[in-house]
């Protein structure tokens, strides 16, 4: 499963994407908890979860959404376009 990061989350983590083995991960929140064990930079990026949005296969989702079978999960701050 490809995991993408955007804006300040990408900067804090120091990379734009990771390849993650989804075995044992059911929801986007499970994925966050898994990533937080991968280093301090991830803990920093996911420090304030109210500022984290998630898209599963390019559809806006919630942290409790299932990631079963997902190809791509993206984490990013609230959007500021327009």
């Amino acid at each position, binding site marked *: 499963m490809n995991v*993408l990061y*955007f*804006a*300040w989350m990408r900067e804090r983590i120091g990379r734009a994407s990771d390849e993650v083995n989804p075995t044992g991960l059911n929801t986007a929140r499970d994925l966050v908890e898994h990533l937080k064990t991968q280093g301090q930079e991830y803990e920093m990026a996911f420090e304030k979860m109210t500022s984290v949005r998630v*898209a599963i296969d*390019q559809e*806006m989702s919630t942290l409790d959404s299932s990631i079963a079978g997902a190809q791509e999960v*993206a984490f*990013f*701050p*609230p*959007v*500021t*376009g*327009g």
Partner: protein
Amino acid sequence: MGGATSNSFSVSVQTKDFDIAAETKVLTASNTQIGAVASFIGLVRGSRETVRSLELEHYPGMTERSLEAILFEAKERWPLDGARIVHRVGALAPGDQIVLVLTASRNREASLEATAFIMDYLKTRAPFWKKEDGPEGSTWVDARESDDAAADRWDP
């Protein structure tokens, strides 16, 4: 053709500038049933002292999909003959055009309301992020709660 063909509804995410006159011409060509075109142009706000430049990041793929979904939803809610969103990405300077929304309909109510709706949804649902470069260095722009409230007013 009657009008609402699929290519009357289109989005573009691009680095280059846009021309509202040229875009309007394309939108209304070959459909004389259109009686109203409403538009919105967003500009990069800021003075040379505070915001020197702006970098717009987006999520390629999802950006286009989400803008298309917003147009589809607008089309479901109002009798539109066509609509167009152009959103720029990359480096921009104060005063630059950043976003264009055009909607076409038989009568003005539909196009005026749909334009406001599209902008409100774009602000809260399309994956773009602004980073401002000013005298203190560069900072990511915070999302505004007022934008959420503006989008919520369209909830059924």
